């Protein structure tokens, strides 16, 4: 038994996307296999680790736990959409400058999670950052440099706003 295809329209990194999806199709597979946006990673595949985090209507979301049709009408940001004309987003820059990754597999999800935080709160406290970033798991580098990178990203963004 299979359900009818569902017509999905959403915006991914500012571009309108329309396609037919199966009801059981998961959004991360749409991103990676049909839109070639392979920056979003899959790790636990259960919505627990956050490696697949994207931003859906401003909310950090595990794309491995989202049916594709649930993204209908949504405004979606993935890691591919952050850099602007080759200029890294402040969060990306801060992660590079703080060496806030080792193998890098969790990094796109970490960066998108941090981006969602700074979009909501341009000057989060360290406690807020720790609480927020606790949603995602890094299995190799530890969290101290990630926390510091998010603090730095907020500062870089403030600097850019003040210029």
């Amino acid at each position, binding site marked *: *038994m299979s359900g009818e295809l569902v017509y999905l329209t959403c915006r991914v990194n500012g571009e309108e996307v329309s396609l037919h999806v199966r009801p059981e199709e*998961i959004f991360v597979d749409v991103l990676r296999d049909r839109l070639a946006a392979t920056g979003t990673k899959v790790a636990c595949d259960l*919505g627990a680790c*956050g490696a697949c985090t994207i931003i859906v209507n401003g909310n*950090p979301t595990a794309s*491995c*736990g989202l049916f594709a*049709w649930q993204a209908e009408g949504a405004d979606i940001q993935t890691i591919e959409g952050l850099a602007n004309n080759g200029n890294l987003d402040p969060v990306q820059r801060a992660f590079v400058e703080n060496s806030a990754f080792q193998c890098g597999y969790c990094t796109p999800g970490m960066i998108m*999670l941090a981006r969602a935080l700074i979009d909501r709160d341009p000057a989060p406290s360290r406690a807020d950052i720790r609480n927020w970033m606790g*949603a995602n798991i890094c299995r190799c580098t530890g969290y101290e440099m990630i926390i510091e990178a998010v603090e730095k990203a907020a500062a870089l963004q403030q600097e850019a706003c003040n210029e």
Partner: protein
Amino acid sequence: MYTHATDAGWISRSHQAIAPFRLVRPASIEEALEAAAEENASFIAGGIDLVRRMRGGDRWQTLVDISGLSEMKVTSDEGDHLRIGALTSHWEIETGELIRKRLPNLQAAWRTIGNVRIRMAGTLGGNILAREAGYDGLVLLGVMGAELVFVTSSGEAVVIAGTGAPLPDRPALLTSVRIPISADTGLAFDRSLKPVVSVAVCKSGDTATVGVGCAFNSPRYSTIRQGEDAQSISSHFPDAIDNPMGGAAYRSRMVGVLAARMLAGGNGL
């Protein structure tokens, strides 16, 4: 292509097939109930638990997407109760202005549930109806004596949380939760020992209701009176789950320790 569709369903990278299903998007509660009356149907809103369970092999022929039913997202002040729509997300509970004013202790407790991704996608109703031993929504609502308001094809059905009364059989849609508001009621919650045990205490007058999560297949509740040894609350409960995550004796002991700690000066009591 790493993914492909087969008769077994969509194969994700976890190689756990999600069985194909029919998707229904009702425009009203009545339509939702009608669709859910079909054999092997389930409601879906945030979808956190359902996707995980389907990856684990659970199958539904029909999923009824109720996320668009806006009447189930409303929070309203009813004087001696606060009614929170079942589709209210955890995030909306922890940031809602009306909840902050009327039930600040509940809001503070709810803020500790899950992580930010879960809190933004997950709903109050999903937390309750998932019937997961480790979920704390019902632990908190149970000690507060909240009313779970269901709509069925034959009318409204109300279940008082914390009484052990069974939830109505499907098709029944949890539309809202009514939480009593009382000036002399305090609430404290400790989930620092999750996934071993979580404990909520609601104190009213000289009686405290203690709710326990994680330690049993579903939340358990008991009461103690002022002057009783709070640690003795452990003996009010049956044997706890005994597994490598936590032994039964340890879980049981910690129920008393956490309850006593909160009653001796926990925030909110």
